[in-house]
């Protein structure tokens, strides 16, 4: 499980002498009696959730259980129908959006790359919230973008165009862009969809590294329960717009919870690789026990 990989000195080295002490300032993102929806339909209903700073939180649930909607709400892409999302105790809707963007980053499920855009250009656009009227592109930005690309192993892709890349490479570039934004809290909506299993592990390992080395709080929606249980420090299980269980995967992921959330009968065993709970579904056929 979490290995004490790199010492703080490494973090300082990758971010450079110019970077702000990002990891030290832990920000708190909280949903308070939050209701979200589209056109009157309520998808997330009166939900309370405090994202634990410095941890990896994974939101799971059946299709249409509201997990992506919750993530969009936390990223203030969707204004609440009721309740609030607060960042360090202040209503996120009342904060300047550029300021929020320096703290909270989001990788949407299907981001759009303009035709012909180069990898370096795209990652560089992640610096937008840090720029302003009097603060333009500098060597600091270059250093931060280079560090983000090194961390995602995309630096050697810098001269290439997005459309030339494979799905896994493209996803790493998008994550690099989110890292260039230098958010303290990174939200990701199904970052492993459309990737084969090798690339899924690669992306999740990268996020684990980011969390452990830079202290970035990671919140993501995942479909794969077993990967969720392995990578999450905290698991949030949703059903019909509400949270039915929340906590460390080993405590949360029980046969009863899986049945309630997914309507699926399953056995839980220990993951032979890391000991986290692992779901073995019981279908109507093929059962020998």
């Amino acid at each position, binding site marked *: 499980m979490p290995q004490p990989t790199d010492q703080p000195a490494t973090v300082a080295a990758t971010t450079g002498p110019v970077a702000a002490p990002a990891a030290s300032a832990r920000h708190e993102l909280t949903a308070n009696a939050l209701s979200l929806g589209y056109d009157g339909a309520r998808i997330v209903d009166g939900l309370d959730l405090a994202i634990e700073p410095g941890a990896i939180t994974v939101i799971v649930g059946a299709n249409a259980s509201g997990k992506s909607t919750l993530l969009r709400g936390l990223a203030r*892409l969707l204004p609440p129908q009721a309740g609030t999302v607060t960042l360090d105790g202040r209503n996120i809707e009342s904060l300047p959006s550029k300021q929020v963007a320096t703290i909270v980053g989001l990788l949407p499920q299907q981001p759009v790359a303009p035709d012909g855009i180069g990898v370096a250009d795209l990652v560089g656009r992640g610096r937008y919230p840090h720029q302003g009227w009097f603060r333009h592109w500098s060597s600091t930005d270059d250093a931060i973008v280079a560090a983000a690309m090194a961390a995602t192993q995309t630096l050697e892709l810098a001269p290439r165009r997005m459309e030339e890349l494979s799905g896994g490479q493209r996803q790493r570039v998008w994550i690099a862009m989110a890292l260039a934004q230098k958010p303290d809290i990174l939200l990701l909506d199904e970052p492993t969809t459309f990737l084969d299993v090798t690339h899924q592990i690669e992306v999740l390992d990268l996020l684990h590294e980011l969390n452990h080395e830079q202290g970035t709080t990671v919140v993501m929606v995942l479909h794969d329960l077993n990967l969720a249980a392995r990578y999450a420090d905290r698991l949030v299980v949703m059903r019909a717009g509400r949270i039915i269980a929340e906590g460390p995967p080993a405590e949360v992921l029980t046969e009863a919870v899986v049945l309630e959330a997914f309507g699926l009968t399953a056995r839980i065993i220990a993951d032979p690789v890391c000991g986290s709970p692992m779901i073995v579904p019981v279908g109507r056929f093929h059962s020998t026990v």
Partner: protein
Amino acid sequence: MRPRPRTGAANLTTEAEAAAPLVLARFVRHRRERRVVLVLAGLVLLVAAVSLMVGAYNLSVPDLLRTLVGQGATSENFIVFKLRLPRLTLAILVGVAFAVSGALFQTVLRNPLASPDIIGVTGGASAAAVFGMLVLGVGSVATSFMAFGGAMVVACAIYLLAWRGGVAGYRFVLIGVGVAFMVQGLLGYLLSRADLRNAEDALTWLVGSVSGARWPEIALLAAFLAVLLPGVAVLAGRMRMLQLGDDTASALGVRAERSRLALLVAAVALAALATAFVGPLAFVAFVSAPIARRLVATGSLALVPAALIGVLITTVADFTAQHLLPGALDLPAGIITGAIGAPYLLWLLATQNRIGKGA
């Protein structure tokens, strides 16, 4: 070998080394756009020179230069400063206005079909102008005002009809195309009940022409552009984020809906303005940005190259209509731009298989 080139002893030198691929990529990207701009600017200069020299009375290069610095004979002065230069200047200004307007629409709505001439904005200007000419019988200045107002009204209508807690490009374009048909119907009705001589004037206006340009109105157009274009430049950073989709743009701190509205207002104002001055020069707004982006091909907004392409199209179209086509003298430039744009539209419809893809 360690998987990543990370050591605890990084300093400024290694940082600069790490950033080297980025600096190089940026250099290549900027050089490409700069070259496209230089070549296009050269072509514009060439077309401008030829337009000033060639006509019923041909000027040589020395003649032209002498006249431009104020040493010309009275007849030369008249030809250059009263006839050809105003016309050229107007063509250049509306070329810029239409092209930038189209580039804004297409980027902000993320759809190559989103262009003021396709979604009925210039159509709205036309209907209002023709209504002014044929029904109210107003003069040319009032006609321009009516055209501007018509474009604004139609754009607002499309925006409101497309609003569902936000404006999506695809819905905006579909509703725009519908509205374009409605104003087309209105135009047909107005023209069919007008008497022949008036209808002929209206038709010339409807094709779009830069003939009869006079300095006061050119100065007015230039003044409007001097306000609008810097505004667009200020919004360009936000536009680059909107290129990445609303969600990513919002995550990066851009208020997507508000920025889109501001950019659409600028786009509509540019198209309405240009239409008010020269009529709806068909397809200039529609084709300029895609051509420029294909030339630059770096995912850049390519606003300057697009503006230069727009200028090339309007100036070449006007020159062709004046001098290269047989038959009636002084054809409206809109005939030529329409002839360029229509095949492009067909090509686009034939090759664009992914709905909503573009810009």
